[in-house]
């Protein structure tokens, strides 16, 4: 029990206070914007840029292309890139390559987005319903998706082409059929995770029904996951469309398609090798763009990797 008066120790060597960075340091708004952009993950910016370019080109092609992409001009066949008026040259029928690439962007984007959305809506719905049901339905769904995933997509597409005739619509249907079981199965995992959360249990405790909970609590919380999936699915769809068009069951003669351009350029590889490069590069950049975008979105939307808060001590 200390009975003595407290001794005052001379103030210990103080540490220097850190200089406060006032908000006014980021003087003009442009610096702030640049800083924000640099803070984003690289995959997101690059992916976003590539996708942005793709979308712009596709939109532009709706109103303008240097030449009519399907206009045949036999007298100007196989012109090399850089020829006056034909920036990327012409193909074996005299069609402008650049215009075809631009129109092809429109086609790829259309197929990619439409098939993704058309697969996501029912796929997610089925996945959610299964996650919210008992083990019986979940097993049933798993068995069905196992079968679905096992079916070779290309074969389905070819069969469909025989039944429905070739064309972009066929391609979209084939892709959707291929995607559906995968989307459903992949949704179940995150949906079940959310269903196990306390706030879902709380919602049941105050009387919400299962469908309500699935739509209003589970769906928004698996939203980021779905967005990331969607981005990757578009990339895959573009690739599949290119492959099917290459095989001849995709876009037909009046629709420009990168895949078909590749096919047409193949026999001319000795004569005009660059004819393969342009559509090939376009496919690659589009697919890369969507993949990177998905990756970048996953990084920023992942709640674990929120902007670094000062950690709770």
């Amino acid at each position, binding site marked *: 029990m*200390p009975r003595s008066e407290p*001794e005052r*120790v001379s*103030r210990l060597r103080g540490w220097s206070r*850190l200089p406060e960075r006032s908000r006014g340091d980021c003087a003009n708004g442009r610096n702030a914007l640049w800083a924000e952009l640099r803070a984003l993950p690289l995959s997101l910016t690059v992916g976003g840029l590539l996708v942005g370019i793709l979308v712009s080109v596709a939109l532009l092609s709706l109103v303008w292309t240097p030449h009519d992409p399907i206009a045949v001009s036999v007298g100007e066949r196989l012109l090399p890139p850089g020829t006056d008026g034909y920036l990327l040259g012409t193909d074996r029928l005299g069609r402008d390559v650049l215009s075809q690439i631009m129109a092809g962007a429109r086609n790829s984007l259309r197929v990619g987005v439409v098939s993704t959305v058309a697969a996501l809506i029912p796929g997610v719905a089925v996945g959610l319903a299964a996650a919210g049901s008992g083990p019986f339905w979940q097993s049933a769904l798993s068995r069905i998706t196992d079968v679905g995933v096992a079916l070779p997509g290309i074969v389905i597409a070819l069969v469909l082409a025989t039944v429905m005739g070739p064309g972009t619509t066929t391609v979209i249907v084939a892709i959707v059929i291929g995607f559906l079981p995968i989307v459903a199965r992949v949704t179940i995992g995150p949906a079940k995770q959310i269903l196990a959360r306390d706030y879902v249990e709380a919602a049941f405790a105050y009387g919400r029904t299962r469908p309500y909970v699935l739509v209003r609590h589970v769906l928004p919380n698996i939203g980021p996951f779905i967005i990331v999936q969607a981005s990757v699915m578009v990339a895959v769809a573009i690739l599949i469309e290119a492959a099917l068009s290459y095989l001849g069951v995709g876009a037909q003669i009046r629709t420009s398609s990168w895949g078909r351009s590749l096919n047409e350029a193949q026999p001319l590889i000795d004569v005009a090798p660059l004819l393969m490069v342009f559509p090939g590069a376009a496919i690659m950049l589009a697919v890369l763009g969507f993949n990177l975008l998905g990756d970048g979105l996953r990084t920023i939307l992942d709640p674990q990797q929120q902007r670094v808060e*000062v*950690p*709770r001590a």
Partner: protein
Amino acid sequence: MLLQIRDLCVSAGPHEIVAIEGLDLPAGRRLGLVGESGSGKTMTAMSIAGLQPPSIRVTGSIRLDGDELVGLSDNRLARIRGSEVGVVFQDPLRALNPTMRIGRQVSEALRIHSDLSRAEVRRRVLEVLLQVQLPQPEQILRRYPHQLSGGQRQRVLIATAIACRPKLLIADEPTTALDVTVQKGILELLVRLSDEEGMALLFVSHDLGVVRAVTEHIAVMYAGQLVETGPANDVIERPHHRYTEALVAANPGQIGGNAGALVGKRLRAIDGTVPAVGHYPSGCRFRGRCPHATDCCAEDPEVVRVGLERHHKCKHPAHTLLGQVDDGAR
């Protein structure tokens, strides 16, 4: 003096998270670092072990057995971490690799930091599993984490941390996720290990009672600063700093004795909340919540030494002046 901390400052960007003027831990002794969330205790412990996140900056001096730790390269820190400093975390399930057998995980530090042969490593692993009182260690070696109970997993973590006979064991809330009866065993184990091996223990926790059961001295942190140090029982029975006093008073209490009189009675809560990083008030950081604060508390309080072993930073301390309750009227 095994561990000597001087002028430690841990910061994230422009925001100071922890500022400790001085803290000592002699070899073989046990020190408790007590604080609530936002006190900076975990950040302090992590900084000592060199495990702070990359965006965090550490300045000042942390000397382990005379060697300076601040500013060391990652490699050197990693070497020290395995062999001289052991760390036990809160959640054993997350700290153990679920796909690795127990034997391999425990031996990892040994394989990296020592040149023992495989047989010697295995022998040491069995030895250390026995030391932490795990039954049938030969069987445990081959199991996976999910096959053990929570208490057993924590013992495995402790075994991993002491395998290389470190001089210092840092334990951050090691029993918070465990049942109270299991916790008792782990705390007793830590005390025994510290005594047997002459190993110093830095025990970080938010729970005063748990810390008192394990350590001899405690240091109380609030909003990144050390506000009081001293022998554990002494600090709890006769706290000087008003925050420590309030913290003790907010406890729900004991079971025995006249516990019946307390049923239904309100607890003595502390008004307000802990200031967030970057929003620390000037002067004493507790003054916004302290019923004894006056204007002079707006100036930075100095460290006051009471007797031989107590320090605090309060201008209106309790329980000083002839050992009587001091209501701060000065």
